[in-house]
């Protein structure tokens, strides 16, 4: 377990280093955006010195790393705002979006997969499989626009088209939700837009696992013992069939963060996705590093949790 935890450090360092080098390898200079009308060679040279951009890439990386160890994530080159502060403001938005979209995905995938597996080659199975196929094929932005047109414009503003308000308890700004619904109504459409694609994938995967598991001997034994179908399916079959699905769910977090960029932009949500893409477009190196760090950390930690979940799902799995 300790070894597994220690593995996180080189993984995150590796990711941040690759991102650091890649960002500096693509064309573009943040100093241009920083200076705007005041851009001239003299000011540009001075600004590069001020931000340490004139130093070799490796030196820049170790300076960044040195500060990070002390808890300093750096400051945005363009706005001067502390990166950590911006990340912490935006993290709850993306976190809520990802958790809800995963909930949407599971809420669709689990029943659909069970029905598909138990009633294989029936109309219910075909419907579940077909819907899953469509779900995988529809891009998030397209589904997002459809939802926008139906639930926001079509239903006379039943759901707000865009924006975000924070939970009343966690709100540190003047834009706070009056209650739970005030917050939730902003995230419903984005969560569905992001979750449906994942639901489709998980349905297909879980259905295949279920088909395999329900034909296994221990399920037959459970049935032979006289257990009713409900505990057989939910307790014995589903629990074991979930193992590959949980693995994929962990890996899907990366896709969810990627999808969040599109969905957050479409629904004008101030999350980490828009933070990351804006930082990349503006070549705001410090912010990009912050984005890479938090997403890498989230990805690695979630996959660690996934590994730990195996022990719950299958007691035979043990970590030394």
């Amino acid at each position: 377990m300790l070894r597994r935890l220690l593995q996180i450090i080189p993984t995150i360092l590796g990711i941040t280093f690759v991102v650091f080098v890649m960002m500096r390898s693509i064309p573009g200079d943040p100093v241009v955006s920083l200076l705007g009308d005041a851009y001239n060679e003299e000011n540009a040279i001075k600004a590069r010195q001020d931000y340490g951009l004139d130093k070799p890439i490796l030196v820049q990386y170790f300076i960044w790393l040195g500060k990070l160890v002390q808890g300093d994530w750096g400051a945005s080159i363009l706005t001067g705002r502390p990166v950590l502060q911006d990340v912490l403001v935006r993290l709850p938005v993306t976190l809520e979006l990802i958790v809800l979209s995963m909930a949407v995905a599971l809420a669709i995938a689990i029943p659909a997969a069970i029905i598909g597996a138990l009633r294989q080659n029936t109309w219910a199975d075909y419907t579940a499989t077909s819907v899953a196929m469509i779900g995988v094929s529809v891009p998030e932005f397209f589904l997002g626009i459809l939802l926008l047109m139906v639930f926001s414009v079509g239903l006379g503003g039943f759901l707000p088209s865009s924006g975000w308000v924070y939970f009343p308890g966690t709100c540190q700004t003047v834009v706070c939700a009056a209650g739970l619904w005030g917050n939730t109504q902003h995230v419903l459409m984005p969560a569905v837009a992001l979750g449906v694609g994942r639901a489709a994938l998980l349905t297909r995967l879980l259905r295949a696992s279920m088909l395999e598991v329900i034909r296994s001997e221990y399920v037959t034994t459970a049935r032979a013992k006289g257990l009713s179908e409900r505990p057989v399916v939910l307790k014995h079959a589903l629990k074991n069939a979930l193992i590959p699905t949980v693995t994929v769910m962990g890996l899907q977090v990366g896709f969810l963060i990627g999808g969040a960029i599109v969905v957050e932009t479409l629904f004008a949500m101030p999350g980490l996705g828009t933070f990351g893409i804006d930082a990349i477009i503006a070549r705001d190196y410090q912010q990009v590093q912050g984005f890479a760090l938090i997403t890498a950390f989230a990805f690695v930690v979630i996959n660690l949790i996934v590994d730990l979940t195996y022990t719950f799902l299958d007691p035979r799995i043990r970590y030394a």
Partner: protein
Amino acid sequence: MTSRRLLPGLLLVVTALAWLVAVPLRAEAQTPKRGGTLRVSYGNEVAGLDFHTSPGYEMMWVGMNVGCGLINITPDGKFVGDAAESWQMSPDGLLYTFKLKKNVLFHDGTPADAAAVKFSIEHIMDPATKSGMRPFYDAVHSVEVLDSSTVQIRLKHPYAFMLHMLAGYRTGLVLYSPTATQKYSVEDRKQGKPEAVVGCGPFKLVEWVKGSHLVMDRFDKYFEPGRPYLDRIMIRVIKDPVTEMAAFKNGEIDFIASFSPDHVSTLKAQNPNANVMTGKETTPMVAQMKVTVPKDGKPMSTERAPHPIFGDVRVRRAIGCYGLDRQEIVKIAFKGQATPWVGMAPPGTLESVNVNSMCPYDQTKAKALLVEAGYGPSKPLTLELMTNTEKSVFNVIATVIKEQLARIGVTANIRLVDKVTWMNTTLQDGPWDMYVEDLLSLLTIDSNGYLSTAYVAKNSSAWSHPRHTDTKVDDYYARYAREMDAGKRKAIGKELLEYMADKMYWNTISGSPFYMVAQPWTKGYVYNAEFEVHWDTVWLDK
């Protein structure tokens, strides 16, 4: 018979009664109501909130409401006092005296007096501030405080656009509280810390959560009695025009500060009562051609050599002048809602002159010039046409230009880059042949920072993208800006525009339309393009 006689009289009485009833109602409807929140949407994020250095219109529109200046300019070009009550210019044009209103306060409670004006101007002029506005203050010799409410600006030489500059170049002059400015750093202002961003405008900054929202509240001690009417302004960033339209249709936003021209007709169809505001075109849509390249291969080198393609004026004329059908471009890219234009200053810019007759679309002439320059079937001309992802209309224009150039035997390869790459390539003298962009809005010919600080012998300006080396242009600019006689100045301006079109140092395609949209209940806004965006007169009728 009796009733017939009575009818006209009865009608008269009914009309009079209706008029009596209607007039007070109308007057009541037009009386501004206090209170409410104006929900504004921006298409782009605010880059920073230091009004003297941060770039972008989004910042400027905040600056114009948090800050106050000396004067403002109306849509018809008249100057009106802001913090200044009155002003006068000496007969030789070298001395401007401003008398300030006595009740002007900064949001931190300190007075916006003559000392604050002197402080603010000197702050912009200080090279350490790195303000993009500094070149426009080159004419300023000194700023003197005569008494707490009188300030004099002494010039080194006459500057015909001094008042235009103070009123409407970028944000215009935004007065800063000396106390707050000295107490807090430029970083604090850029970050939008409310205690650091202290102006004397109608609204005070409450909060800026980057990527989410910006909030400004009414400043109760604003010097204009009764104003502003709104309690609060809430700005949100909605980058996708489809989402922006949905939010507008739902009534989630009251005011779109800059709306995509591509979607105007859709928005109008969806919202017949929306107030879609536009006006004179002050932004040039250009297809710039690079005139020189560094002789030694080092970007920004002062040693220049002609650009391999466009260093030859015949090629510039063949392609930029005769080879482009501006009518067709406008018809396709702007659905006809823009003015085809050749002159460097677009049609809405002060003292602009129509020089379209210098560049009629003429394929034969274009081909002949190319042959004269050595191009033809045995030596076909191929060039790179750069465009960026900021606005979809750039790509449409680039595609039409590619098609038009093919008609005269020229191959244009489109290179699509993002905005930052475009800025880097053009500002840093990188390799490019031709690009499509719409640059900045021009109040006057003089406000064209791209050329007014142009290549002067050994001092290459980063913003003079084509990098011509013709000092005659600088001479024109200097004479134009210093000429105080309006008639003579217009003549110089006309000469300058004709010269630029003849040499094709600057290749305008058309004006670039600008749109703002307001809900029918949003009242009192005075449209003045990008130059003056003031929400202190706005009120909500709902």
